[in-house]
């Protein structure tokens, strides 16, 4: 397929590398917000191709990583009940809770299933009318429309045995929080392409002008990322702080209005705790009152847990870009993808997992 091969083309990649070198005159710290972009950067070695004066800071855009431990514990409490089939995306299974993880619970006999789409959980609910089917809804605005439609369909079908454990999170509030921090080092931002395909990018306009930080909505292929970096560095060198859209073949200013409409019908914005980052104002989505019948938190008792975070994982520093994964003393020692201490080593989008997988030397 031409679209894909063009954006992975080696000659074009080299041309953009040269173009970036030709306009860079000083040190710039640029954050890519999305874990998918972090993965591409480390996989293709983009950080090693560009001038050393450009520091790429890996952002908090890994929903698996930022799902608070309280919700992992809630998931475990629901999944261990005998009448429950607990459905989740695969990369949540190994995220450590206070005392266990979903994969281990599955090995102990719980009925936990990995699904490709929330709609698979709806099918399971239809096929298993005597079991409770619970879907663990994690993810940014890219994923929210998919769970919104699952809840909509559950309502249409009057499915009494389906419910949602909703821990969806939103990108713009966390970007504001990072920029507002006294520790902030970020001077330019690559915005998350697929989140913006749903939400558009108008929410970034006031953020860019308030903090005087250029934001470039960027895709995921190597040429996309280099082009996004080029636009961002060009603005930084010229003292500009606009919102630009590199990923125009997918993202429009207004986003996907049909998806936004259903999201607004099903979910409501709430404050949410992010793992490693604390409470983010407006940083999460919960089912709105009209859909509370399908809210797993109301259907199951999950309130009595005492949460215990690992004392050695430096996830907060990693997610804010204050340190790079190899700077954590446990990286590659006590913490590996096989035995993850923290969530950033579990997910394929976690910065620690990307460095462990693609870097033989650190």
């Amino acid at each position, binding site marked *: 397929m031409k679209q894909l091969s063009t954006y992975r083309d080696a000659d074009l990649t080299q041309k953009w590398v040269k173009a970036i070198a030709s306009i860079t005159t000083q040190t710039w710290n640029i954050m890519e917000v999305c874990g998918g972009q972090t993965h591409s950067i480390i996989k293709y070695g983009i950080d090693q191709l560009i001038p050393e004066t450009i520091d790429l800071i890996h952002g908090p855009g890994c929903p698996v990583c930022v799902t608070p431990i309280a919700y992992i514990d809630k998931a475990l409490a629901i999944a261990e009940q005998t009448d429950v089939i607990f459905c989740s995306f695969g990369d949540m299974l190994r995220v450590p809770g206070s005392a266990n993880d979903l994969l281990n619970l599955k090995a102990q006999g719980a009925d936990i299933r990995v699904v490709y789409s929330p709609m698979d959980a709806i099918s399971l609910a239809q096929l298993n009318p005597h079991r409770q089917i619970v879907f663990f809804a994690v993810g940014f605005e*890219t994923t929210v429309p998919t769970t919104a439609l699952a809840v909509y369909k559950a309502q249409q079908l009057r499915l009494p045995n389906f419910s949602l454990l909703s821990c969806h999170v939103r990108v713009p509030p966390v970007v504001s929080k990072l920029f507002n921090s006294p520790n902030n080092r970020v001077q330019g931002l690559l915005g998350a392409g697929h989140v913006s395909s749903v939400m558009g990018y108008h929410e970034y306009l006031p953020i860019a002008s308030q903090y005087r930080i250029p934001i470039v909505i960027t895709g995921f292929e190597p040429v996309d990322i280099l082009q996004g970096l080029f636009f961002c560095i060009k603005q930084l060198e010229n003292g500009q702080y606009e919102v630009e859209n590199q990923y125009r073949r997918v993202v429009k200013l207004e986003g996907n209005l049909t998806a936004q409409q259903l999201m607004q019908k099903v979910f409501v914005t709430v404050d949410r705790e992010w793992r490693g980052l604390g409470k983010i104002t407006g940083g999460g989505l919960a089912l709105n009152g009209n859909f509370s019948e399908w809210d797993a938190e109301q259907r199951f008792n999950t309130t009595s847990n005492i949460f215990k975070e690992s004392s050695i994982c430096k996830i907060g520093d990693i997610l804010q870009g204050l340190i790079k994964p190899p700077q954590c003393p446990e990286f590659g020692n006590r913490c590996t993808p096989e035995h993850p201490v923290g969530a950033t080593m579990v997910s394929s989008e976690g910065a620690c997992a990307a460095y462990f997988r693609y870097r033989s030397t650190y």
Partner: protein
Amino acid sequence: MCLAVPGQIISLQDHLDPLLRCGLVNFLGIRKEISLAYVPEAKINDYVIVHAGFALAVLDEQEAQASLQVHQEYTDFEAVS
């Protein structure tokens, strides 16, 4: 998590409720039924960006072409020098 992959629509199944419209999408040989709820404008042969069983956007061919022209504009050093 926000991973989304492009595929081409090869057939459509319309539904009375537009939110339940589906299509068969070809991902480099792997065919899968995908919800087209959020791309009401999508037609057969369009490329769509798919995440967790849902098409979230139709790939804009004109914009893809335009961004190739951007490549030429900014990276054609050899031709200029």
